[in-house]
């Protein structure tokens, strides 16, 4: 009997050790760190990355008007709540404030958070933060983004707490989620046509369109076999449509991302209204590239 208890104890300890080892937050690869440090930062490109990556969609003040001026969209107060099957996630303050925001971070900490989903304290972030997308971004773009970030205002709004219950409140467990779902490979194959290739990068590496437009499995991971096929709204009622919408041309898609007008002149609403507010601030060629990628991806033969 004592032997059995001993065996159980050993098994439990080994199990805990295995869990601890498997769920250990990873740091960035050496090559990525080197690329970050060696890149002469370009804040102007960083601003382009900021809008394409849609940071303001979740981190700007909740309820901000789509027509709000750029200065207001750059105040990254946090506070936006996302009601999901796993609980309520609330976007934190990521302004340049040294204590309430991320103003005291360095480039490595920023890049580790954005590309790896790991905080400076070494904790996993919830994947409501789309680092699974940003892991595909180039280190150069992330360095530029951080250079642009230095010009953003500091806001002293405290970050709200997440409303997430057991077991999802154990962040270490997200290490297991990452083993299952964190896939830094692009979904679409390499595309030769330069515009579609740029679009692939914008959609899969920055824009995180797939976060809402791709269905999720029971563990909340994206079902890559149904990439951009439309899905139940991950944070609310209704359905998020298939991309590209049936019958839309490249011009239609680019015009929608710029103006919010559909080809039949309905006007964008819901959380997509914020996405359009960001996308209207990227270069016209980049909107055209997103359109080209969506049309090209949908026309690819099934693998």
């Amino acid at each position, binding site marked *: 009997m004592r032997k059995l208890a001993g065996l159980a104890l050993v098994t439990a300890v080994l199990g805990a050790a295995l869990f601890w080892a498997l769920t250990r937050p990873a740091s960035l690869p050496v090559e990525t760190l080197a690329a970050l440090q060696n890149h002469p930062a370009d804040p102007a490109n960083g601003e382009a990355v900021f809008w394409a990556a849609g940071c303001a969609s979740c981190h700007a003040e909740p*309820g901000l*008007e*789509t*027509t709000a001026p750029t200065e207001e969209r750059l105040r990254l107060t946090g506070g936006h709540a996302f009601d999901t099957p796993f609980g309520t996630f609330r976007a934190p303050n990521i302004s340049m404030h040294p204590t309430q925001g991320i103003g005291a971070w360095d480039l490595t900490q920023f890049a580790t958070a954005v590309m790896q989903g790991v905080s400076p304290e070494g904790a996993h972030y919830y994947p409501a933060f789309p680092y699974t997308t940003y892991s595909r971004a180039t280190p150069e773009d992330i360095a530029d983004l951080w250079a642009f970030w230095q010009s953003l205002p500091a806001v002293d709004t405290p970050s709200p707490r997440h409303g997430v219950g057991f077991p999802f409140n154990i962040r270490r467990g997200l290490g297991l989620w990452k083993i299952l779902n964190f896939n830094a490979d692009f979904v679409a194959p390499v595309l030769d046509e330069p515009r579609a290739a740029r679009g692939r990068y914008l959609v899969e590496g920055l824009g995180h369109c797939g976060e809402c437009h791709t269905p999720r499995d029971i563990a909340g991971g994206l079902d890559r076999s149904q990439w951009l096929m439309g899905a139940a*709204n991950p944070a*609310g*009622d*209704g*359905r*998020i*449509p298939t991309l590209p919408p049936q019958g839309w041309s490249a*011009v239609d898609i680019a*015009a929608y991302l710029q*103006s*919010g*007008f559909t080809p*039949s*002149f*309905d*006007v*964008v*609403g*819901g*959380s*997509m*209204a*914020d996405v*359009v507010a960001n996308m209207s601030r990227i270069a016209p060629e980049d909107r055209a590239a997103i359109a080209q990628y969506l049309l090209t991806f949908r026309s690819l033969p099934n693998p």
Partner: protein
Amino acid sequence: MIRRLALTAVVALGSMTTMSFAQQETDPNVNARKAYMGLLAYNIGVLGGMAQGRMDYDAAAASTAASNIHALSMVDTSRMWADGTDNQSMEGTRALPAIWENAADFDARIAAMASGAEAMVAAAGTDLASLQGAIGGLGGACGACHQSFRQPE
């Protein structure tokens, strides 16, 4: 013969019941809302089409579309937003309960459409650049309301 008649009567009665169910699904308030939004989109399509370069700029057509939208923004639509016609209470609508919960905000959105339309009336007939300058405000007014008060598809 009598049996066949009875059968016909049963089938007829059955299809009448089906019809009355089908009628229940289309609420006149929801129909009116959709028709109203359709008229807005129909006219915005002229302005947006010109702004996006999909059709040639035509000052008279643009002015007409702008004043139509302005006239539509003056319509009292309050009866269309009857209680119990939100998407939680019935099928066939994407109108969120927030419309009724934040009625003052919703009214402010309608007022914002009216002022966006007013700016467009002043701009549409002037030239293409003026029209393009005003379309963002008007479309933004539509979008701001859809953002808070309409469910995604």
